[in-house]
Structures are given as C-alpha cells and as structure tokens.
C-alpha cells in the first residue's frame, strides 16, 4: 500500500474505551506488524472483543488513536471509511453468515458490492475461495443453517478473504470446534497467511493456536497490554494472570508427563 515504509498494520495509541462508569480499556497501546499473526489473549470479560470491535469501528472510543491499514477513522473521509471494508476481513465468533443467502452468495457478497466483475468470474472466485478454505464445490449451494460448526467457520473465513484483505481479524476462530478441527483450522489460517501474505489479528483462548500459529502474543489484563512478544517472552512474564494462564495446570504443552 501507499504507506509502504510503515511496517505497522494496526497502530493503537492511548486507547480508552468504557461503558458508563466502567473503563474497559485504559490507555492501551498496541502495534500489529505487517504480515504477522498476532494472538491476543486475556481473561473472559477483560475486553479482548471490545478492543477488536473498537478497532473495526463497531464500538466508540473515548480517546486515543487507532490507525488501521494507514487509515485513522477520526481524520478519514466518509469515502475512505467505506473503502476500508475492502482492506480487512472479519471472522466473527459465530460466523455471522447471512442466513438468507447460500454459501456461494455469502462469499460473493463483498465482491458484488465492491468490484465491477462478471458473474462468471465471481462464480469462479467464490469456488476458488471455498476450495482454498477446504470446502467442496458441492457445499456452495447450501444455506448456512445446513452447515456444521466447522464448515460455518470455513465459509465465514472464505467470505472474510473474498477481497484478499490486508488484515484479517479473527474472533475466537477455534471456539466451538473440537481440538482436531481446531488444529486444522489453525494450520489453514497459517497456510493461507503464508500464501496470501495478510496480517492476522486473532483473539483466542486456545493455547494450541497460540503455540502453533502465532508469531507474537499480546496479553490483555487490567485494561492494558501487560506483555507482548513471542511465546518465549510471554512465558518469561511474571504477571500473575499470565503466569496462571501459560504456566498453569491446563497448559498441557509444558506440563510434566504423568507417571
């Protein structure tokens, strides 16, 4: 893109978000680098989804600046704000597929709205995206209500990738999937990210995802980022919540083998 020298895809500075008297994010700073997969963790209710929804503009902020793909929502024109939809793709937790459209139409929706494109090419592109996320062409005419949880996520991913976005936001991509499907989904994201070269901002709870696909991990606690860096840096952190989460009983990866 135009901001070629800038190596940061998402830049958040001094962000404050709150509801009523409650302050959820308190002067939060975060950089997401271009082309990396950033895993974002935090306790339930700590404001992970709030941060993601604020970055994509679904929630208002009290103060601070957010720059996404070179655009600052406060200074951007209406036209630029509309155009940003082409530069990011968002995978919502429940998929958020349009229930009245088929799988193919769901994937084509962003193309139809944003591109001048023939129906033939759009059909081919939809099929290509569906195959890239590991679905079969036979699934294209199904409706979202006929899909399993894993397939819903894959279709939602295909729709998020419909316009080859620069940044992909994932809200708990593996929640509701069994560990094997979750692992497959993780490696799918990794493969696609290598092929297409987009930046991934992934909100997750899944330690396996954090270990296997994330380049860097940011931990949110008390409304701030308490540690950000590769897994080794996070494991070295002395923050009590981070310790409990990454070095607690549930961390099978580093747990001793049972006798």
């Amino acid at each position, binding site marked *: 893109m135009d901001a070629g020298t800038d190596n940061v895809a998402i830049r958040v500075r001094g962000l404050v978000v709150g509801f009523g008297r409650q302050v959820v994010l308190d002067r939060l700073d975060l950089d997401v680098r271009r082309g990396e997969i950033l895993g974002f963790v935090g306790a339930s209710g700590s404001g992970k989804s709030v941060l993601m929804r604020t970055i994509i503009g679904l929630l208002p902020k009290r103060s601070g600046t957010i720059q996404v793909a070179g655009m600052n929502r406060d200074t951007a024109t209406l036209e630029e704000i509309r*155009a940003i939809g082409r530069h990011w793709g968002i995978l919502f937790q429940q998929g958020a597929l349009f*229930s009245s459209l088929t799988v193919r139409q769901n994937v084509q929706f962003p193309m139809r709205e*944003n591109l*001048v*494109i*023939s129906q033939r090419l759009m059909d081919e592109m939809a099929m*290509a995206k569906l195959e890239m996320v590991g679905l079969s062409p036979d699934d294209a005419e199904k409706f979202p209500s006929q899909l399993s949880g894993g397939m819903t996520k894959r279709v939602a991913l295909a729709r998020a990738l419909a316009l080859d976005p620069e940044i992909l936001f994932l809200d708990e991509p593996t929640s509701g999937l069994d560990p094997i499907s979750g692992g497959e989904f993780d490696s799918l994201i990794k493969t696609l990210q290598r092929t297409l070269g987009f930046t991934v901002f992934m909100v997750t709870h899944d330690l396996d995802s954090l270990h296997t696909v994330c380049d860097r991990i940011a931990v949110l606690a008390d409304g701030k980022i308490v540690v950000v860096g590769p897994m080794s840096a996070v494991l070295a952190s002395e923050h009590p919540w981070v310790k409990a989460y990454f070095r607690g009983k549930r961390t099978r990866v580093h747990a001793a083998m049972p006798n």
Partner: protein
Amino acid sequence: MSASSETAGTRLPSLTGTLSEGRLRLIASGPWISVHAETLERQVEAVAADIAKAGKTTIDIEAVDELDTLGAWLLERTIRAGSGAGREAAFAELPQRYRGLLEEVTQVNRRPAAEVQKPNALIDALERIGRATAQFRDSAQTFLEMLGALSAAVVRVLLNPRRFRLTSAVYQLFRVGWQAVPIIVLITFLIGCIISQQGFFHFRKFGADAYVVDMLGILFLREIGVLIVAIMVAGRSGSSYTAELGSMKMREEIDALRTMGFDPVEVLVLPRVIALVIALPLLTFIGSMAALYGGGLVAWFYGDMNPSIFIARLHEAVSVTSFKVGMIKAPFMALVIGVVAASEGLKVKGSAESLGLQTTTSVVKSIFLVIVLDGLFAMFFASIGW
C-alpha cells in the same frame, strides 16, 4: 462505482500478446488485484481469440507488481485455456514471490460442482401444487397437534393446579390485555364514528336516520366488534407470541426446557393462550363500548340525535342475545389465535428468515381462521335462531 477512487494515478494492469507461427507470447504487467477486476477481465477476454489459435503460449509475469487471488486465478484460467489437446501453456518464469499463490490456484475449480437439474415447467408447477396441498394438510395437523397438546396440558394442570404458571399468565394478561387497551379503544372508537357518520349520511336520503342506532348496536355487539378486536390482537399479540417462541426455539431454550423435564407447551404456551382467552372477551367488550360511544358522539354532533334518544333507541334495538353472540365468539377466536401463534412459533428453524416467515404465516393464518370461525358461528347462531 469506480474501483480506482483510491488508486487514482496508479497504473492499470495490462496483458498484451504477440502471436507468431502459432506461438503466443503474453506479457502481463501492473497490479493484478481485485480492485481492477473490470480491466483485468477485459484484458483477458481480449487475448482469448489469440490463445485459441496458439499451439504454445507463454506468459511473462515478471512485470506484475501486485498479485492477489483474483489476478492469480485469471492467470491460471488463461493457462488452462491455452493448454490441452496437444497445445501447451506455461509461465515463462515463476517469480518466487508469487509461487505459493499461483500453485495454490492450480488446485481450484478442477471439479465442477454437481449440476443442479432444472426440471421442466409442467413438473415444477405440479410439484408446487402437490407441495402446497401437502403443506395444507401439514398445517392442519400441526394446528390439531398443538390443540391436543394444549388440552393435555390443561388436564394436567387441572389435576394438579400447582403446576399452573400463574405469574406468567398474569404477566401475559398484562401484556396482551391491559397494554392493548389504548390502541383497541382508539381504533374501535374511530370505526364507530366512521360507521355512524356513513349511516347518517346514507340513511338520511330515505329518512331512516333513526335506524342508524340499530345498525350500530347490532353490528358492533354481534359482529364487527369482536372481529376487529380479534384481528388486532392477532396482529399485535399473536405475532409477538410467534416471534418470542420462535427465537426461544432458535436459541435452544425450548430444548433446554424439554431436557429439564418440562413440557414447553405447559410452561410457555398454556399461560399465553389462557391470557389471550381471558383478554380477548374483555377487549371485545371495551372495544364495542368505545365504538358505540364514538357512534353516539357522531349521532349527537353530526346526526342531531340527542344522547338520551340514542340510548333509548339502543335499548330497544339491541337485545342481550346480540351481546351474548358477540361475547361467546371471543374466547374461541382467542384460542385459535393462540394455538396458531404457538404452533408457528415452534416451527421456526435456525435462520432469521425462517423467524420472519413463521411470524407472517402466523398472522395471516390466524386472521383467516378468525374470519372462518366467525362464518361458522354465524351459521350456528342462525340455525338455533339467535
């Protein structure tokens, strides 16, 4: 919409070819990305004729400075068009930066999706008639099933009155009864005014002013009052029952109740239907009174009929029978509305569209059945001479 709004001034992608002795050399350059989809498609179409003629095609993509899935697929499509049947097509060189993406797209669109067969029009029409007929039977069946389940729930509750959800029923009565009063009063009042005015206007021509009161009294107490109120309640409360139960079904709340050993009909439907059965006669009474009041006001100010004369005429014209006919119908209409609303609500499937569809069906069906029921009652009361 112009795709180049933000990339104004940048280069457009291009694909140019030179054909000599059956060898085609294509040179692709510029940004091969989806914002330029329109230009790209045109460029690829333009060389299609040359590709068809060429025995050997090479594509040079060294000058392509951006590539996304759409661009990669168009290149792949060009390669596929140029190969097969003894002809060959390939990239002159595969730059490292695009290799992963181009290899990825060689995998896709290999197998066409299973063809959806288009049936012929006649069979299609017959199928639709058949389905509609079966649907009619099915909806009659669901209606009867819900009525049966409701009766069973009533019996269970009568045997063990402590099972009855009184709080829920009272709350529903508040919603469908008390909160509906203002709008019902307003609308029936206005309709009373209108019918009274029309009555005076037309009856005056042959000096039958006095009979407007007879018309108003009999019409409202016997027929229109209950019908208008029932239709309004179907639209106002029946639809909300369907939407409520439907979204509970969508969010698996109904399943949760069932697994805890509760009967959803007893817990959710029965209190709602009972609230309707109590509310509708009351609303009918209030509505009829409001209509007569409106009619009386118009008679006074527009028809120059003194209120005392209006009341005296009303007293003569209307018998208790007319009133009873109207009031007897009300609870049955309430039952029909409640049963339809509940059975449609429980038919909702996973999607938002299905919720909308069932809510519409619920309102249309209950209004239709209310009118059919009114017709049946008319025949019944005629035959017993009321």
